[in-house]
């Protein structure tokens, strides 16, 4: 360890070895990420799924709405490599076209839940006192609302708003508004843990204000558990969108999504498992990719693991 040299206080410091440039935390993180196989695997999956969401016609020329009942539950043939579902629709085409709404609803609702959860958890944990009591009890109340009941009431109300034709906005808002509580609780506890650390006291002693304390010291050291909760929430929300669509408060009309495909296919598992398995595989791979990406990024930004 070259660190040991530094202990010899009297010897003048040796000149820095050439080539060791000073790097920021972000540059260090990128340096690490580039070598991470998990990061690249996750990135490839996410890019493919995003392409699917943006230009589904790149992946299939078939129309997901071209359904012929006579093809019901038929096996793979020609372009329909995943076979046909109970209505005789091309499962592959439906899966490709389903990416758009699943990703859109999943990512946006998680972002919304993340912003609310971060703000509430940070405020409750950092400021404590009556604000903490108020916010924590509010979280308790939110957690007490049964998810389906809350989603139906909220979803119906939001869906009635004008300018909401396909129901994407309503579902996203519903999932975001009902999904932030766990994140807020996790955030609150890790903020409380971080703010009592000695280095926060040291910064306070120097005279650092609340903004510096929060954004330089508390938040960076409290984010890790929160990001894990969010990546898990992404999978949950993509699946919940299906539940809501099934109940009639989700996506409307002839919208296709993985969730809808999965919930439709569950009734016919024993007859034809394909229509259930393929969207599920895509869903699982996407969620896994986001979790892996979250993990890789979090580790890369943690100097202790470098």
């Amino acid at each position, binding site marked *: 360890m070259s*660190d040991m040299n530094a202990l010899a206080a009297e010897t003048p410091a040796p000149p820095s070895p050439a080539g060791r440039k000073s790097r920021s*935390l972000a540059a260090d993180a990128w340096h690490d990420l580039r070598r991470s196989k998990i990061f690249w695997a996750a990135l490839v999956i996410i890019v493919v799924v995003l392409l699917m969401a943006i230009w589904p016609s790149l992946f299939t020329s078939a129309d997901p709405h071209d359904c012929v009942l006579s093809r019901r539950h038929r096996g793979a043939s020609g372009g329909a490599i995943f076979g046909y579902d109970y209505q005789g629709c091309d499962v592959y085409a439906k899966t490709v076209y389903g990416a758009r709404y699943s990703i859109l609803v999943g990512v946006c609702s998680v972002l919304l839940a993340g912003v609310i959860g971060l703000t509430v958890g940070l405020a409750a944990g950092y400021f404590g006192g009556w604000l903490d009591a108020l916010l924590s009890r509010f979280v308790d109340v939110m957690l007490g609302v049964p998810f389906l009941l809350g989603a139906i009431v909220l979803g119906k109300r939001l869906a009635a708003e004008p300018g909401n034709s396909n129901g994407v906005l309503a579902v996203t808002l519903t999932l975001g508004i009902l999904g932030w509580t766990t994140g807020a609780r996790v955030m609150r506890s890790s903020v409380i843990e971080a703010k009592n650390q000695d280095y926060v006291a040291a910064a306070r002693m120097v*005279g650092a204000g609340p903004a510096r304390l929060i954004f330089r010291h508390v938040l960076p050291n409290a984010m890790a558990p929160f990001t894990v909760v969010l990546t898990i929430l992404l999978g949950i929300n993509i699946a919940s969108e299906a539940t809501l669509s099934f109940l009639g408060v989700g996506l409307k009309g002839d919208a296709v999504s993985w969730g809808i495909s999965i919930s439709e296919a569950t009734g016919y598992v024993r007859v034809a498992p394909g229509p259930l398995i393929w969207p599920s595989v895509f869903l699982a791979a996407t969620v896994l990719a986001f979790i892996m990406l979250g993990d890789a990024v979090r580790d890369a930004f943690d100097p202790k693991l470098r």
Partner: protein
Amino acid sequence: MSDASDLVLETRNLVKHFPITQGVVFKSKVGAVRAVDGVDLQLRRGETLGIVGESGCGKSTLAKLLVSLEKPTSGEVIVRGENMARLSGQSLRRARRNIQMVLQDPYTSLNPRMTVGDIIGEPFAVHPDAVPRAGRARAVQELLDLVGLNPDHVNRYPHQFSGGQRQRIGIARALALRPEIIVCDEPVSALDVSIQGQVINLLESLQHELGLSYIFIAHDLSVVRHISDRVAVMYLGKIVESGYHLAIYEQPTHPYTQALLSAVPVPDPRLRGRRDLIELEGDVPSPADPPSGCRFRTRCWKAQPYCADHEPLLQIRQRSPHPSACHYAEIRDVIRY
């Protein structure tokens, strides 16, 4: 030497009570932990005042009060004629520059996600007028050099350093704003014995170089003996004896000091077992409910009924040439090595 103009830090009847509350929403106060209960200290320029006492006697709370990490319940902390306890906002921020602290645990006192350069440079970021922006990187490297670390290590993270090196980083951070006073809250107790000496020597040489005044808090009497000019012994939130370090170490008059000193390990095996060993019985009473009169009486072999009713003041007594808070203070030669 004891000129009043030399005073850099003074506390007057400093008190900190932590309320014990019941209930979550409607809190009611059911008592108070008297962590620091009326402490008067004076610190002169270039001097080291050692504060010793066992765990839970209020040493660390006292340190936090001195650097305004806690607001005192009552009393004053006077730095450069200003009562820090009354200040807030900008004026407190400015006053903080005169008094900084080295924290106890070098493993938790450095933000793991900041580079050493950012950690030591943080005081400059908080006080932009301390060093012009262009000179900050240079100033940080000078500080690293001053505490005996390689100035090229500014981009390393704390976990890449050993405990002793981390404590040097903590010292560099405390020095950044060029304070007159540094409060050292057990700065070496978390370090290996071999490293403790290096850090103590560094603190001493910095004191000579920069003319610093130290408040040196420790439970290790031999460390305090080495570095201190004057020593104050604390028990249950109060100072029980204070004086120049020879007076305390050679001629202790308070029974608690005598017991503390008798517990110091003796390096010479021939003297082992030959000296006066005082074993105290029982634990430190709860600071939420301290004994009446003299707080030490529950564990004191000299205690009389008089001690329960009359609180002994910290003053020079007939048989104690330096201030001692015991009615029956007298010199007892506990230790000689």
